């Protein structure tokens, strides 16, 4: 199958269930909200090394935030509710709390919750107070520019991780433009993130390594510089590969994000688009590229 001249492999991305959380970060200005939220998603590219994957879902207008200030939405994903709670506590406590004028609210109603604000309140050393409004408790922690307001509980819901696309191109610059366009398209889908810097990953990995303590290693089959030394998966003329990893709050959201990214990436300079899977052994969600494109009428 070809879309605008780009060959689309007849394969699928293999996605798997993850635990998800959604934070609404607000501040006095859009810049401050972005600063706090952007910091909170740092070092959260891959669950393998970081313990969670995180990214910015997008901005929120004043009218859509609980306190009527500019906001940003953060999505966090991890493999267990315990690990997710640990990262919520760490990232809200160490990044959002110290950020000027910030506040943090739960953005996901789910059956399971983690008491995050309810634990962070102890930072206030006895000077904390709370407000209970409409069944939701907000903790007020005195800080040096006023108060940090954080919701007591955050929803832990089922999400989907591991959606992905592998973009193969002739030249790095043109391919990077396509990959960035695809990442931008993911940002346009609410409930989805591409957790790598700028949404683009240059180091597709494979599980395991020839070294016993290394859990993941470079996927040599996609490295142009190893073309002549390994069983490559690259077509002739390929000079660069970029991967997009996509997590979302549901399989449907990941499917939508992959579709938007696929269409955005089909542009000159891209030779082929593929997807990573483990033969169907890793996860229950098999997102077929051809099927996604057909659903979009491509």
């Amino acid at each position, binding site marked *: 199958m070809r879309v605008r001249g780009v060959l689309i492999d007849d394969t699928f991305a293999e996605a798997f269930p993850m635990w998800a959380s959604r934070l609404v970060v607000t501040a006095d200005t859009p810049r401050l909200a972005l600063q706090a939220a952007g910091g909170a998603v740092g070092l959260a590219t891959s669950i393998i090394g970081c313990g969670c994957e995180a990214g910015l879902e997008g901005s929120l207008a004043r009218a859509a935030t609980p306190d009527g200030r500019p906001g940003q939405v953060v999505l966090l994903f991890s493999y267990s509710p315990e690990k997710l709670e640990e990262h919520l506590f760490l990232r809200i406590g160490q990044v959002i709390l110290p950020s000027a004028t910030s506040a943090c609210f739960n953005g996901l109603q789910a059956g399971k919750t983690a008491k995050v604000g309810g634990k962070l309140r102890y930072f206030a050393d006895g000077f904390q107070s709370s407000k209970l409004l409409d069944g939701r408790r907000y903790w007020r922690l005195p800080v040096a520019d006023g108060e940090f*307001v954080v919701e007591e509980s955050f929803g832990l819901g089922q999400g989907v991780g591991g959606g992905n696309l592998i973009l193969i191109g002739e030249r790095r610059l043109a391919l990077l433009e396509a990959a960035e366009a695809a990442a931008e398209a993911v940002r346009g889908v609410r409930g989805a993130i591409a957790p790598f810097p700028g949404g683009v990953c240059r180091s597709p990995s494979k599980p395991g390594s020839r070294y016993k303590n290394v859990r993941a290693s470079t996927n040599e089959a996609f490295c142009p510089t190893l073309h002549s030394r390994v069983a490559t998966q690259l077509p002739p003329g390929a000079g660069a590969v970029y991967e997009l990893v996509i997590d979302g709050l549901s399989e449907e959201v990941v499917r939508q994000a992959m579709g938007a990214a696929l269409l955005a990436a089909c542009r000159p300079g891209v030779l082929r688009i593929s997807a990573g899977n483990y033969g169907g052994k890793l996860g229950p969600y098999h997102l077929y590229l051809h099927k996604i494109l057909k659903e979009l009428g491509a």
Partner: protein
Amino acid sequence: MRLTLTFVGSDPLPVDARALRPARLLKLSRADLARQSVMVGGRTVRLGELCRADRQASAGDGVVLAGATARLSGLGAGMDGGRLLIDGDAGDSAGAGMSAGEIEILGSAGDCLGLGMQGGQMRVRGSAGDWCGAAAPGQRSGMGGGTILVGGDAGREAGAGMRRGLICVGGDAGECAGVRLLAGTLLIAGKAGAGAGLGMRRGSLVVGRLERLLPGFLPAGPADDVWLRIYVRHLENLGMRLPKAWLKAAMPRFTGDSLELGKGELIVHDLSE
């Protein structure tokens, strides 16, 4: 189904309307409704002698009380669900001790509105009398939960001994608003009378205008309004608007009452002294 009870007559004696709870009234047949007894002054009277009943299947759930409603006291007292609309004024103790449900009074309410209320929502389009959301006689704690919205003014000692919940007064409040406040939130858009926050231990009292601060309140910097913004947003969703000026500039904040625990906060938009 909607049940409308239209009260007739000009007898000034108060009617003890505590038995008129929506959930119960909606289950009664027309005959049982007419036989329902209520106390008027010191004597027992059948409801059928005081009002006429109309049922409408398609008008939504709830009970509407119309006509001469100002003499009905204890309306919705102890209510634990359902919706009660009073198309007129209500007497004393409306919603006292209610734990759930919704009461809306299109006119004004008498004294002791939501006295010892534990949950649910009370909305008064007009004004409320004294001791709105306050403690019941003999009790230390006032309102323990729920929301009271008063579009007009409130009388003296609004929120006295309040322990949880929210009271929002769109107009002015009389003397000693938030007296002995234990916790919870009392918002007064207009002017609060003398003695606001007297003896408060915890909780938040926000007032539009105050002429004189009690000596037990100490300056505690400009108020950080994030929590207040959440309340403003919530109240807007309920159709209640607070002054926009509250959120335009940091309001002065005081903690007190130092003669008590001193952990309460008093935020004043316009302090005249």
